[in-house]
């Protein structure tokens, strides 16, 4: 009989499987999906996963819609877009996301809002071939959810190709909340470079803004490279009105670039400098020896990898700050110092009734 069951020994089975594996030319093992760390158990309030809701496909749809063998990957095409809870540890940032900095205070506020009101709208993600998820929109909410210690976030899973994903991420409304002119300009420039749009008018339509706004923001992103490099570190440094002044000065005297750079750099400490004051600084010769009182404390946390550098959890009387393992000991020490200094400031400003 072709298929005797109980008589097949483990050794026979292994040999047969190996033969099968050799026969199939395409025995490529997909990358293992890392196992998500379990959410920490909260006493008296154990984490419970949501059961799925909504429609379920029929057997016929499920089986009938399957592509023929060998058409791997095509299956995702026919998958419905669904809202499901996804582990935050399985979500990666989009490389197409225009935002480079996240304001920690705003994230904490957003986190507080999530905690109090729950999540109104799903974030949007797409599934990558490695089994992880890539954000389309919701970069801020994902960070806020991590800050408040959530293990999962409700996500709408879209089936998008790279190009579609890139457009969707670039043009997502939420991607533009609080973006600086420079960051917007970079996004518009990218859309032009990638051919998503060919004219400024197209860009305006794509991003649902005015053509004038496109022009303004592009003027910031198109400053000379040394200035763009500085803006990459301080994206909010110059508005389009400042950029206009810089352009005028440089058009008048291209040799003045070092002076302009120095003048712009002073704005790191004086972010509220008016454009006309900037013009004065650019054209005054004595800007060379500026003195900066102290290194500006960045309000934002750089995290290119898509994870917060630390998470904060408050629980009744305890405030727990967890640093990410990827921080070097020096970075940890510095962060600790700054946090303690800030806490001291808070404590000193509080009026506590004396009960001694």
């Amino acid at each position: 009989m072709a298929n005797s069951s109980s008589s097949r020994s483990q050794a026979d089975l292994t040999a047969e499987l190996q033969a099968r594996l050799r026969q199939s030319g395409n025995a490529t093992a997909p990358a293992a999906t890392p196992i998500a760390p379990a959410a920490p158990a909260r006493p008296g309030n154990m984490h419970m996963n949501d059961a799925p809701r909504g429609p379920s496909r029929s057997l016929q749809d499920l089986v009938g819609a399957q592509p023929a063998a060998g058409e791997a990957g095509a299956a995702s095409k026919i998958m419905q877009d669904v809202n499901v809870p996804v582990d935050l540890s399985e979500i990666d940032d989009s490389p197409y996301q225009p935002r480079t900095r996240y304001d920690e205070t705003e994230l904490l506020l957003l986190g507080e809002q999530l905690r109090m009101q729950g999540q109104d709208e799903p974030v949007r993600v797409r599934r990558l071939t490695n089994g992880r998820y890539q954000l389309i929109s919701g970069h801020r909410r994902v960070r806020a959810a991590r800050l408040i210690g959530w293990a999962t976030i409700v996500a709408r899973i879209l089936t998008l190709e790279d190009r579609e994903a890139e457009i969707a991420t670039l043009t997502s409304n939420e991607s533009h909340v609080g973006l600086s002119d420079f960051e917007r300009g970079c996004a518009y420039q990218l859309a032009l470079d990638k051919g998503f749009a060919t004219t400024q008018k197209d860009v305006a339509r794509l991003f649902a803004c005015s053509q004038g706004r496109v022009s303004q923001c592009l003027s910031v992103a198109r400053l000379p490279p040394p200035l763009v490099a500085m803006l990459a570190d301080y994206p909010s440094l110059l508005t389009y009105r400042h950029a206009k002044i810089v352009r005028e000065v440089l058009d008048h005297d291209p040799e003045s670039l070092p002076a302009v750079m120095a003048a712009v750099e002073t704005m790191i400490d004086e972010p509220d400098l008016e454009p006309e004051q900037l013009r004065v600084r650019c054209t005054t010769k004595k800007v060379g020896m500026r003195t900066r009182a102290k290194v500006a404390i960045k309000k934002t946390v750089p995290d290119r990898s898509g994870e917060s550098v630390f998470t904060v959890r408050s629980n009744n009387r305890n405030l727990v700050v967890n640093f990410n393992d990827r921080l070097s000991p020096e970075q940890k020490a510095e962060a600790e110092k700054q946090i303690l200094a800030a806490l001291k400031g808070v404590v000193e400003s509080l009026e506590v009734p004396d009960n001694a």
Partner: protein
Amino acid sequence: MAQRPVVEKTFKVQAVATMLGISADTVRRDSDEADIKVQRQGGDGPKTRLFTIENVFELAAHRRRKNGLTKRSPLIITVYAAKGGVGKTTSAANIGAAFALRGLRVLLVDLDFQANLTMAFGYDPEVTQEEANELGMDPGAVVKYHFGNLLPQWSKDGSVEPLATVIKKPYGEHGPHLIPSELGFDDLEAIFTLERLMERKPELAIATWLQKGLSGENANVDLSQYDVILFDAPPAKNQATRGAMLGSDFVVTPVSMERFSTKSVSYLAKVLGELQRDHGRFPRMITLANFYDMRRARVAAQVVALTTKYPDAWLEKQIATSEEFRKALSDDVIMPVILSRPSSGPAEELRAVANALLEKMEAA
């Protein structure tokens, strides 16, 4: 072909009436009407009718025809619990038997190599053909094949065994049918793993088998004759289990009302979420409380937790703690308690559970 261990246990009219939920008079009238060959008690006393278990299911089938129960597409169910020892197989066997007593055509599929469901119907998967011959056993009582033998993935050339050689009918044609399991079934996991490496989507193997068996595409297996197809999945979160859940309309998860039991439901919810995400199909979850004693504070706390988080899943009938299950296991004839001790407390509860389950599934 007799596909069963010899069951010599017989049932009196009252026991049959209890099983079927009808009066003793109706049992007598209907069995005469159906011309069921029932033995009579020997000796000098009254010639009481003695029903064999086959007779009971014959009667159930007759009543189904008589009541004009119409055939619809089968309910496909997986019984699954991430936690072991919560009464999963006991529930599966009894619910399957209870459905058959209602006249439904039931196919039970044992997906656990430990073959507890197979044993619950009196089979010993370790008995070889030679031993069976020596003991003079019915050859049908020997378990040679399992569910894997019905899947094209099982053998190298894609050939499958005919359903008729694999299937067991422990209580005759009209009783529940069983696709048994035995130790070798576990190899299916290794095969599925290989299939996965070859990107052949083994998670769809069971769904495909079901679909083809229902649509008539698979000449070997006609599943459209069944009203209920019920998989008994092992507590592991393995590929066969996921595959069965993906094929199913409902997953019934017995929950023992102990600490951490809520967690096992949460694990299941997560798996179902993954199915929805990956395939757009998932079975509806039904939680069946076992060892249920509301007087205990801890049980009450678990119930509150489950009904708050998964209100739609909660089944309104439960199974209390009972010694009867253990007693039934030590009976000479092994069969689900709902059949062996029809008037016992647990049997009554199990019938109520099966009815509530059917109602809930039909309403969904």
